[in-house]
């Protein structure tokens, strides 16, 4: 098993673990963290890929992309956290409750 494969498999594992958390954990902070774990997984895959190029020096482009990705993830995480905080202050809980559209449906006219 090459180094690349280890990175890739670890990345995939993180991705799946994150997805699992995202699905099952109701708390918003957990969900945001789960997403971060998934992102981490993706970055690992990227880093692994950088090594796959048949040259002694790793390909710099994936690293550049990972950096960009990290920036994007950090900012969106920050925004998500702010949103979660705001939701907590508005509703007193940090979870996605059932959206109000799911009230008891009844036959409507038309």
């Amino acid at each position, binding site marked *: 098993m090459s180094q690349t494969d280890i990175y890739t498999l670890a990345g995939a594992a993180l991705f799946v673990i994150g997805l699992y958390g995202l699905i099952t954990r109701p708390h918003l902070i957990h969900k945001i963290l789960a997403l971060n774990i998934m992102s981490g997984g993706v970055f690992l895959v990227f880093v692994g890929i950088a090594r*796959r190029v048949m040259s002694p020096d790793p390909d710099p482009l*994936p690293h550049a*992309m990972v950096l960009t990705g990290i920036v994007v993830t950090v900012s969106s995480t920050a*925004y998500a956290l702010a949103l979660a905080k705001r*939701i907590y202050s508005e*509703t007193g809980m940090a979870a996605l409750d059932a959206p*109000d559209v799911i009230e008891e449906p009844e036959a409507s006219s*038309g």
Partner: protein
Amino acid sequence: MAEALLAHMPALAVVVPLVAAPIAFLAGARWGRPVALVASALSVPVAFALAWLVSAEGEKLRYQIGGWEAPLGIGLVVDGLSATMLLVTAVVGFAVTVYSLGYFADKERYRFFWALWLFLLASMAALFLSADVFNLYVCLELVSVSAVALVGLSGQRDALVAAMRYMLAAILGSIFYLLGVALLYGAFGVLDLAHLAAVLGPDVTGQAAFALITVGLVLKTALFPAHFWLPPAHANAPSPVSAVLSALVVKGSFYILLRLWTDVGDPSYVPGMGTLLGVLGAMAIVWGSVQALLQERLKMLVAYSTVAQIGYLFLLFPLVEIAGSHVVDAWSAGVFHAVSHALAKSAMFLAAGAVLSRFGHDRIDGLGGLSRRAPVTTMAFGLSGITMMGLPPSGGFVVKWLYITAAIESGAWWWAIVVLAGGLLAAGYVARVVVPGFAKARDDASDLDVDAGRLPRRMEFAALALALAALALGVLGQPVLDLMAVGSPASGVIPWTGQ
């Protein structure tokens, strides 16, 4: 001078709103409005100029920002498809801006709207112009973040929760997309779309990358069953935002799918993928329409209509795969649907917003006599409904025509049935809104406040103009069809069949 300006048109399309956004932010509650108006108004001629350039050139235009070549520089590519999407974005954007000037009468509370709105426009433009898959990822994120911010703008509880759902779904989609990009790069070592198209070959990693990217974009496009975030987000956002989300934002991720599956690769690259997407599209059409029939609130109804209409976009994929000589029809149908739905759905949301902001509610069973109280708005809603139903003369009809043609030509008539059934279901939910409008006025029973003030005319007429534009596409759509074909499969060069 003029030529120099023309040469930089692709950049201008992004730069104008991008520069205007911070200015609007800094200009504050009062002066942000004219800044946004000017910027979005400027975007329209820029988009037209680009469209003209592309048409005149007859093929893809490449533009390297700062003169840096790929792979290091950021390249912008304009072909017919991009120009079309830019044009729609500019036109809808301008109409929504005009509408918003009336809608956000409470200037202080919505002071951030203008900057976010311009950011959204800028990132949409950048998305449609991006030449490589990673830049597309960045744009996608920018679009998502500004869109989420706009959804939560009112700060109300439902809106915030909806924004959060949207945010989580959007990030999840982006992560899937990014993973796909990583695999793609791993498999082929290039990111530029054109390069990718050149080197794409049968490769498990590449196919897996396509699959993951598709999952991410399906999520962002809210294709059934991944539509879970869309109705609350679109229904609880301020109406101009709803309009843009339904009309443009979901089209952004669809645009990337289109690029990947028809420009870079083709649906047969992953056997069964086209059919699967088509089946999901068909399910979306039926399910979304049925849910629209059930909704009690107008904006929810319109949001579910979007869920249904998104389904039509995805019928493109199976038909492109099997339509033989009518592949152009199938492709054009999908793209044309993106255009006509953008116009009609924004009109519909703007009309719904007008009702909501004038009468203070949008309960469908309280809309009796609407056509009498708000004739222009009702007409805007009804006319955009015609496009939803796919009846002539409307853009929706052209879409239906092309899809059915492709379906019959390829012997897959069941897609034609889906298209037609969707039209009938659309008639059902449009009628739910329009029909009570004709009910006899009974002042004691109507939920429409007689004393509610008049809406600003520009709100009503912005909606009407968009609806009329959607109708006009059904008769005068040929230039749009010509434009979208430039440099695309529809131009006669069909890469995936090697012709």
